[in-house]
Each structure stands twice: as C-alpha cells, then as structure tokens.
C-alpha cells in the first residue's frame, strides 16, 4: 500500500515538473515600454512642524522645537526648469487673530545629488518671500525652508491649531 502511494507521488511530481517546463518554454514576451523626457518631480521629503518656543512665536527651527519642511526637486534634464520656493506669509488655518503677525523665513539648499549643483545657493535670486533657483544640472536637490511667525508686541498667540503653507514651484524654461 505504502509502495503504491510512493509510486503515485513520484509519478505526480514527474508530471508537474513536465508541465512547469512546458509552461516556461511557451512563455510570451511582454514588452515594458518607457520614455525618458524632460520632467520635474516635486517631492515632499519632510513635512514641517511649527514649534512654540515662546508664547508669541511659532517657528520651524529645530532649536525652537520645530521641524523644517524639506522639498526635493528631481529634474531629468539640466537647464529645463527653475525652482521657486516661497515661505509662508500668512496662516492657512488659525484661530481668530486680532493683532498683526510678523513673518520671516528663508530657503536654502540642504543636499544635492551632483557636485555641479554646489552654486545653487550662491546664484539664487531672492525677492519678498520667494527664492528662485536655476536648475542647471540634472539630478535631485533638497531645499529646506525655515519659517517663523511673531505675534503682535509680545502678545501670546491664542490657543488653537495653526497651519501655513510653503509653495514649491517648478517652472519649465
């Protein structure tokens, strides 16, 4: 009885092997088609968080308990795009504020994938809250933004949720 079971199992394994070989031999070719074209991808690498070091201040600086938002730009071809990054100058969500808010901030390159990008910060054009970079080299560039909001004249910010938005733009040349 045991001998019969073993023989049956061996025969079954043989047929399964034959079928697998047959299936492999008759496989169909499936093409994978892709194109590389000029494009820009904006990646939100790190979302920012405001710290509240003093009652009248919100800041993304790590020293103030915040987290700097980091945006990565991937460009496939150099000199095809420029990056424009604007730090916030208003809250998108906040409790009702009765006094003015003084905004400050900056944008800087934090990491690059190519040594040719080392002059990005030197050659950036800054106006108002916006920094403009000519992305002359293909690859990835990480930009970090700092943002701080100071409320009134040493006035405590009302309790509630505060949100602000960094605008990262990639504009074709």
């Amino acid at each position, binding site marked *: 009885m045991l001998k019969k079971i073993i023989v049956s199992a061996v025969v079954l394994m043989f047929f399964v092997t034959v079928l697998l070989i047959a299936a492999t031999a008759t496989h169909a070719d499936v093409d994978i088609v892709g194109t590389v074209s000029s494009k820009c991808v904006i990646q939100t690498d790190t979302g920012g968080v405001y710290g509240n070091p003093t009652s009248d201040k919100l800041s993304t600086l790590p020293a103030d308990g915040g987290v700097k938002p980091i945006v990565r730009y991937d460009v496939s071809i150099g000199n095809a795009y420029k990056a424009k990054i604007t730090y916030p100058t208003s809250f998108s969500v906040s409790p009702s504020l009765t006094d003015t808010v003084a905004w400050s901030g900056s944008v800087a390159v934090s990491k690059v994938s190519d040594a040719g990008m080392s002059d990005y910060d030197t050659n950036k054009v800054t106006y108002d809250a916006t920094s403009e970079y000519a992305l002359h080299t293909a690859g990835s560039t990480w930009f970090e933004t700092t943002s701080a909001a100071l409320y009134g004249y040493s006035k405590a910010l009302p309790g509630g949720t505060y949100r602000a938005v960094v605008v990262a733009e990639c*504009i074709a040349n």
Partner: protein
Amino acid sequence: MRSLFVILVLLVSPPAQAHEMTPAHPKLTTAFVAGLLKTEMSIFNKRPNVEYYEIGVFDKDWKTIPFVTSYRLMKIKYLTHAKFDVYIREQDAKRAVYLCSLSKLRLDTQRTANVSSKICSRFK
C-alpha cells in the same frame, strides 16, 4: 556593508510624496472643434495627502488665459496617473505660455507647515 546601509536607508525612509506633470513642453495641435487647439497632459499623484490638483493656463506675466478641460479641479487618487486634454482658443494660443497644476491641500493634514507643489509646463 555599503549596500546593506542603502537597503536600510530605503526601508527606514518614509514614502516619498511626489507631484509630477508631463510633458514639460506641450505642443498645441488642432482640435476637432473649429477655432480650438488642444494638448494632452498627464499628472502622476504620489502625494497621499493630496487628492485634488488645480489646472491653470497663464501668459508670460502670469495672467490667466481662458481654457477648457474636463475638470479645472481634478481629483487624482494617490498613486494614479491622470491624462487630460486642455483646449485653448486659437486667438489665445500665442499668449499662452504656462500650463500649471497646483496641489490642493487638505485641512486635516497632521503637519502644521505643509508644502503646496506647483508644476508648470511651457508651451512650445
């Protein structure tokens, strides 16, 4: 050892959140309606906190130019591509310089300093 480090970094890194629009230099071609020109665009949404993208057409001074598309505010699910046609009047074609998509952020995001992404292609 180095490859192990790269694998570890890839495993530990949070998923990237990307916004992509192609082509970079769209070409306007004749549409099936007289007096209109059209171009086909594609957006890839890899931002889990973004569901909607606003489309806009602008001149060299960033003034808006009238255009038609299926939805001006497009719903694009996370990790999906959306292809759409943009129609512009022939008379506006010479003025049209930029075609942009702007991510619309949800209010319920956990981050307090969020990032809005905008990609602009330039007409040939």
